[in-house]
């Protein structure tokens, strides 16, 4: 059963289509890694999947309340402690226990530190621990390993593996090799939207002005 399926999707940034004709599916227990050069529209695609912006065309099918999104920024409040930050998101997603997440992301010892006193890598780990407390099966991750050292990347890969083993799925945009050998790769290059004169997407409105 596929947890996330995308059909003939076209996404836009700043009113211009960036990716089109995109189709893929992610099944339970599967990870899909999105690759592509800067500016190809990885973030735009993930934001569209997260429902933050509407697609220009195409279909996204996903069970309701299935997705947890993690963006570039971790959304941490610097004056709250690690545990408070995590407990807040646990409450929002109506899951109570933050201990397993602290354990998995190796944050136990930091639980009462204010988030502002964490290093960049520790913050990132806290941001990923947030994913664990959401209890959602589909993870949509935008550059999750930025500012993580090798050990933390391994920790992250382990967390993803554990998530997949319990029937979850993950969609990850990244430049770095995560050591997730079992993950499928999807190169976004071929889906780059052609410029309008080469027969690009016509429904887009700014074209109506030409």
């Amino acid at each position: 059963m596929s947890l996330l399926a995308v059909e003939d999707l076209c996404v836009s940034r700043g009113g211009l289509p960036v990716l089109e004709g995109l189709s893929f599916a992610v099944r339970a227990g599967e990870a899909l890694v999105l690759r592509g050069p800067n500016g190809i529209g990885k973030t735009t695609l993930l934001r569209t999947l997260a429902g933050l912006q509407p697609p220009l065309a195409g279909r996204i099918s996903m069970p309701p309340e299935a997705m947890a999104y993690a963006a570039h920024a971790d959304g941490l409040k610097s004056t709250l402690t690690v545990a408070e930050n995590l407990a807040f998101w646990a409450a929002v997603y109506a899951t109570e226990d933050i201990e397993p997440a602290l354990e998995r992301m190796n944050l136990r010892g930091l639980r009462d530190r204010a988030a502002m006193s964490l290093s960049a890598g520790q913050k990132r780990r806290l941001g990923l621990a947030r994913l664990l407390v959401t209890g959602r099966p589909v993870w949509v991750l935008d550059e999750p390993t930025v500012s993580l050292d090798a050990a933390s990347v391994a920790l992250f890969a382990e967390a993803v593996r554990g998530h997949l083993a319990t029937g979850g799925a993950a969609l990850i945009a990244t430049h770095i090799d995560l050591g997730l050998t079992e993950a499928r790769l999807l190169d976004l290059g071929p889906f780059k939207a052609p410029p309008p004169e080469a027969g690009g997407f016509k429904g887009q409105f700014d074209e109506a002005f030409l």
Partner: protein
Amino acid sequence: MSIWEYANPVKFMKTSSLVLPWAAGLTAISLIVGLVWGFFLTPEATNFGSTVKVIYVHVPSAMMAINIWAMMLVTSLIWLIRRHHVSALAAKAAAPIGAVMTLIALITGAIWGQPMWGTWWEWDPRLTSFLILFLFYLGYMALWGAIDNPDTAADLTGVLCLVGSVFAILSRYAVNFWNQGLHQGATLSLDKQENIADVYWVPLLFCIAGFVLLFVTLVLMRTRTEIRARRLKALEQRERMA
């Protein structure tokens, strides 16, 4: 063939270029007729003197000040519901005209009020409401100016226009409640023509028609400018993509 066809920018440009000279010509004719007739060919009112003639600018501009906001409300709704870009651009184009009309109404009101009431400004409900309306116009225009992405700006100003309309009406009633004023009631309700004698009435009609046509002309011109600006932007973006 439906009315929404004109929401297509190309179609709009074509049609508006045909309409524009006629609108401009009719504006000139009716404004010249109305203002000359009103200013020079009507008798001086017995108890008002010549100051009453400011009515030929004051009343039409005040009417337009309110009607332009209503037009912006309608075009904003069309944009929010049907996503026709020309509609949003028309609302954007209308706002400065509305603001100027409000300002004209306020200034001519002051010019009229000075000899009538002995004061340039009074915190009368009508005057106050117009001042508040002017503030709404300013906020609306400022929001358009502050946001770079044209679609985001259109959406946000559209929402502001909706909320603003509700609160503008609320303010009108609140202000009425707050202070009973000096300003006379509406001079021009159709069934109460006895309020104003025919000699003043006919040139006033010309002036009102002239102001409406002036607005149509200006808003068409400004919408065309906005569309051209958008076209330029689209071309630049295309350049960058290629």
